[in-house]
C-alpha cells in the first residue's frame, strides 16, 4: 500500500518535472509540425496519469527486507560505485579482487570463501579477458607501472 503510494507520488513529481523541462526544449526555426516537445510531453502525461493511478489504487505491500539486509544492499551499491571509480586508475586485478570479495561476502557471509572468490575471479577473469578475448585492460596501478 504505502510503497506503491510513495513510489507513485515520486514518479508523478518526476513526470511533472519532465513535462516542465520538455516545454523548455529549444526549437529551431526549421521545425516540423510536431517539433521536439510534443512527444516528451505526451510521455510525461502518460507517466503522470499512471503514477497517480498507483497513488489512488495501490497494490498490496511487497515484502521489504529487514534493516540488516538493506544495510548489505547499501554496502553493495557503495562497493560497486567505488569499483567504477577505481577501475581506471588502479587497474583491473586489485579493485576486482576487493569488489568481488566484498560482494561475495554480502551474499554469503563466510570470510574465507569470499576471499578465495575475490582472488580467483580477479585472476581468472583478468587472464580470460586479457589473453583469450584480447580486451585492453590495465593490469596495475598506472603509478606503479610507470
Amino acid at each position, binding site marked *: 500500500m504505502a510503497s506503491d503510494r510513495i513510489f507513485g507520488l515520486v514518479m508523478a513529481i518526476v513526470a511533472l518535472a519532465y513535462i516542465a523541462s520538455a516545454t523548455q526544449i529549444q526549437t529551431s526555426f526549421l521545425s516540423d509540425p510536431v517539433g521536439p516537445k510534443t512527444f516528451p510531453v505526451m510521455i510525461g502525461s502518460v507517466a503522470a496519469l499512471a503514477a497517480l493511478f498507483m497513488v489512488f489504487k495501490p497494490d498490496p505491500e511487497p515484502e521489504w527486507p529487514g534493516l540488516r539486509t538493506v544495510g548489505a544492499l547499501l554496502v553493495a551499491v557503495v562497493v560497486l560505485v567505488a569499483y567504477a571509480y577505481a577501475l581506471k586508475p588502479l587497474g583491473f586485478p586489485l579493485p576486482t579482487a576487493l569488489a568481488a570479495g566484498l560482494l561475495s561476502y554480502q551474499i554469503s557471509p563466510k570470510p574465507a570463501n569470499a576471499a578465495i572468490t*575475490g582472488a580467483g575471479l580477479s585472476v581468472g577473469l583478468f587472464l580470460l579477458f586479457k589473453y583469450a578475448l584480447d*580486451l585492453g585492460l590495465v593490469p596495475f596501478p598506472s603509478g606503479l607501472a610507470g
Partner: protein
Amino acid sequence: MDILQNLAMGFSIALSPYTLMLAVVGCFFGTIIGALPGLGPSNGVAILIPITFTLGLDATSALVLMTAVYYGAMYGGRISSILLNIPGDEPALMTTLDGYPMAKAGRAGDALVLSGVASFVGAFLATIGLLFLAPMLANVAFLFGPAEYFALYLLAFCTLGGMASNNQAKSALAAAIGLGIAMIGIDNSSGLPRLTGGNLHLFDGIDFLVAIVGLFAIAEVFFFIESHGRNTSIGVKLGKVKVPWRDIYATRWTMLRASGVGFVAGILPGAGASLGSFMAYMTEKSIAGKKGGFGTGVAKGVAAPEAGNNAAAGGALVPMLTLGVPGSGTTAVLLALLMTLNITPGPTLFTDRPEVVWGLIASLLIANVVLLLMNVPMVKIFVRVLMVPPWVLLPGVTMISFVGIYSLSGSYFDLLLMIGFGVLGYILRKLDIPTVPVILGILLGGNMENALRRAMVIADGDFLYLFSSPVSIGLWIAAIAGFIAPMFLRNLLRKPQRITD
C-alpha cells in the same frame, strides 16, 4: 523456390568452419548460462553483447554466436526448472509444474531428455514457420507508413503491458519510463540537446546496453544479496540418463500441437514466450482432462510447455525481423544486439541485407541440431554447472558486466548509470512493475517518435491522419483491446502458482 535458394545461400554462410565453430561455442555457453539459476536468457545475452561487440566480430558472425547463445539459453533454462524447481526465466515457470514432480519421482533423466526433444521440435518447427512467414510479412510491411508504425509500436507496448503484468497502470508507467529515457540526448531532426540537464555525458543519449545490463544483471545481484542465495539448494539427484523412447513417442501430438500454439503466441507483438508456454500447457491440460494428471509429473506436461516456449521464441523473431518490434524480453535483447551491430530490422532488411537474414535462419537451424546432440549425451556436464554457488556466480556476473560496459565506452559515467539502473530495476521488481516495457521503451522510443513526426509532416499536422488507413485503425483497435481485455480476463488467465515442497 525462392525460399530454397535463399536458404541455400544462408547455409553457405552459416556452414563455414569458423561460423560453425562459433555456433557450437555459443550453444555450449548458452546452455550453461540458461542452466545457471539466476541467469536467464535475457541476462545472459545482455551481458555478452558488449563483450561480443568489443571482440570486433563482423555482423554475421556476431549474430550467429549470439543467436546460438540465445537458443542455448532457452534449452538450458529447463535444467534448473526440472532439477531445482527454479525457473531460469518467466516462460520456464510452466516447465517446473510437471518437470519437478517427475524429477522427484526419480525420473529426472527422462524429464531432461524429453524436454530436450520437445525443445528441439518446438524450435525446429518454429524456425520452419519463420522461414515461410517472415518473407511474406516483410512484403506486407512495405505497405506500412509512419502512421501504421506508430500504431504498431503502441500495440507492442499495450499487449506487452496487458499480458506480462498484473497491473495496467504499472506497465504503462514502465513503458513511459523507458520512452522518457529514450528522449534524452540530441534531437535527431533539430540537432539540439533535449532533457540532458546540461550534462555533457547525456548528449549522446543513454546507451540501451547500459540500461539492459543494469536492469537485468545488476538488479539480479541485489536480489541475491537480499535472499543470501538461500533459494539455490540442490534439489534432486540425477541418475543414469537414458532416452525414454516411449515417452517421446507418446507425446508426439502434444509436441506438434504445443509448437503450433506457441508459434502463434510468439508472433503476437508483445506477447512472447511466456504466453506461448502458458497457452501450450493449458491447451494440453484441457485436452487431457482430469485423468491426464497434469501437475503430478506426466510426460505431456513436460513436453507441452517446452515445445510451446521454444516455438514462441522462434515465432517472436517474425515481428522482430520484419517490423522491428520485439515480442518479449529476450527478443528485445536480440533487437538491442542487432542495433549494436548497426542492422536495422524491418522489411528492408530482407531486400538490402539478405545474407544477414538467411544466415541467421540457417544458423538457427544449425544451432538447434547442435543443441539436441549436445544436450542429450552431455546433460550431466551441464547439471554440474548448477553446483556453482551463488556467492561465486553473482560477483562473477557483476565483474563481467562492468568489464563489458567499460570496454564499450571507457567512461565512469556509463558504469555509474548501470549501477543506477540496477537499483531502479530492484525497486521496480519489488513493486511488481515489469522491467521489460522499460527496455522496450528505451529501444523503440526514438523510432516511435520519428514515426509520429514523419506522419505529421506528411499530414501537415493533422492528427486524424494517424487513423486514416484501415491497417492503422485495426492496429489501434488491437492496441486498445490488448490493453483493456486482460483486465477482464485476469481471472481466466491467472497463472498457476509455483509448487512448493
